[in-house]
């Protein structure tokens, strides 16, 4: 199939960006979205143009590297799917596709479709952990955890930190991301000791990074490729009030 791409090109964080048109010809429906971009880039390089920079690594939907707004939707049209697992059979011959980077003040553009998500790392560094040193941990079965709690904690911990929640929120809020980590640790006995400090520190870090507030419209949940539930935001709010 043949497609028309309208791609955000921006040389670096300082220069202004703009939409540039490209033709993607002879695209197979079996290609992943990123493989389609590989093909376009190979053509650009042969023609002497600068290839489109985009982020990717595992291409199995788990590392959280890939991040493209596709026709205004984070990771494209399919629910529960990352950009790398989106295949071209989701599009039609002759389609025009818009490709843009995540849009959020806290995620500055690095180049083209690549943004800087290190704000997420700094939020985790502020408290998204259990303070345990290596060695000397008690036997793992000395701390029984109800299966239900462990399962819900696992659902929260599934977050891949891609930033789709921020990109799809009109306030660029990081509440879903932060709430997933807060809920994961708040649901487990290991996370209890530091839970008040943790939520305060992480929320403060979130604000400091310039992420906006939640206004309960749940675009984040709709966009999340791992289908993290908005219920965790309720847990975050509760934990924050209790702290």
């Amino acid at each position, binding site marked *: 199939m043949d497609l028309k791409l309208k791609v955000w090109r921006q040389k670096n964080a300082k220069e202004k960006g703009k939409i540039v048109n490209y033709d993607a010809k002879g695209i197979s429906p079996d290609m*992943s979205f*990123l493989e389609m971009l590989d093909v376009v880039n190979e053509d650009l390089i042969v023609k002497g143009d600068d290839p489109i920079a985009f982020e990717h690594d595992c291409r199995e939907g788990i590392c959280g590297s890939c991040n493209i707004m596709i026709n205004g939707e984070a990771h494209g049209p399919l629910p529960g799917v990352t950009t790398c697992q989106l295949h071209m059979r989701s599009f039609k011959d002759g389609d025009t596709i818009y490709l843009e980077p995540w849009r959020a003040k806290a995620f500055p553009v690095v180049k083209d479709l690549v943004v800087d998500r290190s704000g997420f*790392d700094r939020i985790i560094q502020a408290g998204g952990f259990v303070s345990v040193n290596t060695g000397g941990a008690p036997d793992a*079965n000395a701390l029984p955890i109800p*299966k239900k709690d*462990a399962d819900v904690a696992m659902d929260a911990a*599934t977050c891949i930190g891609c930033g789709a929640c921020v990109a799809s929120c009109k306030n660029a809020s990081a509440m879903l991301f932060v709430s997933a980590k807060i809920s994961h640790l708040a649901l487990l006995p290991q996370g209890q000791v530091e839970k008040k400090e943790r939520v305060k520190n992480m929320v403060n870090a979130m604000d400091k990074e310039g992420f906006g507030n939640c206004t309960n419209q749940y675009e984040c949940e709709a966009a999340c490729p791992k289908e993290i539930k908005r219920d965790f935001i309720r847990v975050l709010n509760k934990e924050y009030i209790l702290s």
Partner: protein
Amino acid sequence: MSLDSKIPSGPLEKKWDDYKSHIKLVNPANKRKYTVIVIGTGLAGGSASATLAELGYNVKTFCFQDSPRRAHSIAAQGGINAAKNYQNDGDSVYRLFYDTIKGGDFRAREANVYRLAQVSANIIDQCVAQGVPFAREYGGHLDNRSFGGAQVSRTFYAKGQTGQQLLLGAYSALSRQIGLGNVKMYPRTEMLDLVVIDGHAKGVVIRDLVTGQVSVHSADAVVLASGGYGNVFYLSTNAKGSNVTATFRAYKKGAFFANPCYTQIHPTCIPVSGDHQSKLTLMSESLRNDGRIWVPKKQGDTRNPADIPESERDYYLERKYPSYGNLCPRDIASRSAKEVCDAGFGVGPGGQGVYLDFSSAIKRLGEHTIAERYGNLFQMYEQITGENPYKVPMRIYPAVHYTMGGLWVDYNLMSNLPGLFVIGEANFSDHGANRLGASALMQGLADGYFVLPYTIGNYLAEVGFGKTPSTDHAEFKKAETDANSQINKLLSIKGKRTVDSFHKELGKIMWNNCGMARDDKSLKEALVKIPQIREEFWQNVNVPGSGLELNQSLEKAGRVADFLEFGELLCLDALTREESCGGHFRTEHQMDDGEAKRDDEKFCHATAWEWKGVGAKPTEHREKLEFENIKLATRSYK
């Protein structure tokens, strides 16, 4: 030069404890006077960085991803082994040790593997304490499953995302230390060279991938945790960024590369759908429990599989291995698939695929049961191929998955270059010629949390503090100049071919000539062709853009340049090892039934190669493997 593995004396069960009781220690107040550089933030590098920082060392950690949380360990699915015996099914440290040695086809070092089995139980304790949400029983205790033919249930798991959860555990420990200022983290950077001063590893050359700035960093020791080299085959289950550069450039600075020909090939991957394909996706091997593998009896039969009657199907595994059938060992299943496809019976685009058919299982058990067992895998398959595996058989083909070779290390996980430590998939030590399922995660975390933090202290105490070299040292200047000139050279060629086109060409040769099966002829042919591709690369590659910006083509070019040299080393190693074992199968050396035929008399050793220049034959060193506790036996799973 003789390879001293520094295995402590004494009985196997006591070696590690005795070692720990007698090594030199660094006074806590002196630890902050040492700087350690860690390359990579996967299970090995992330856990090592966190632990070294907890101990009090200054740690500088580098990763090429935008965040340390994205290292490729995150993609591991199945689980992590540990000899906890929670199921009371007779598991023990010895059994885990024995299974690992046997699984590796008796080509791993006994003492290292025993230690791995010993510390495995601590890993689970550590991860649970961090809040890793392992699967639980209703009573609240940890759940286990069995894996990869083991006769006990020793595999701990977190849904199908065990690697992700373990990595996030290590990442959270690392993040805590970054927040405390004990680790200086450098994401989006790449190691370009190792700096060796007076025979000791003392620093690295780093390129900032955003600004392009090349800088040098000095330390008292360097730890490589940069993963495996499966992407030398271009198509593999590895993440796209996985590369050999850090270990290969250390090799060029004098570290020995051991057993590079040991690559693990997994039988159940989704096959290539066309020339555009950039990587392969692994499907769980558990599918072979209910799926039947077949190809049409007629070559080039393109009929819809449902239209091919039973009498015209060849269930080749059931035919060739009647007792094991579809559950025969990984290497045999992989090679058999290649054989039928090479003979023209393969199905799907390009004929590189075989059917994995669930129709008889669905008829026997009902669609509901199959959906309960494998639903998520069926969904993933449909997402990638656009075909519904409940209606049409899956197509599968083997793919490169894990590499057991790596830089040679001694019992301390130190390479032959003092001060250079190598951990996780980047070293060669624990898996022999084959890796069992759920054991790579175990090794990464064992090395990072529980082994390296002891052994590196012993080294640092010996060299003493206050000896961190200045980055003004001539060796740093030279390494930095060399790195810059390679970058400038790559950018100045301005040829006609893209980096990827060279990588694909190399990958095809590696796969065809040194893949699931190798022989004298195919390897010699590869050793002629690879230098030719390399020569053309340096004449005709086109790397657009400049060196002072985010330039993904330039990053790839440097890595492919290394693969073009490393591929030759891998083939040479495969040619030299005239036997079959685990992931290394020489067709000249097989039993009548197709099993690998080992030659313990001539090849019961690790081969460690010493760099002698581009195109020059490296020098071969051998570490004889001593088996004091296990009797060498023919590996058989019948």
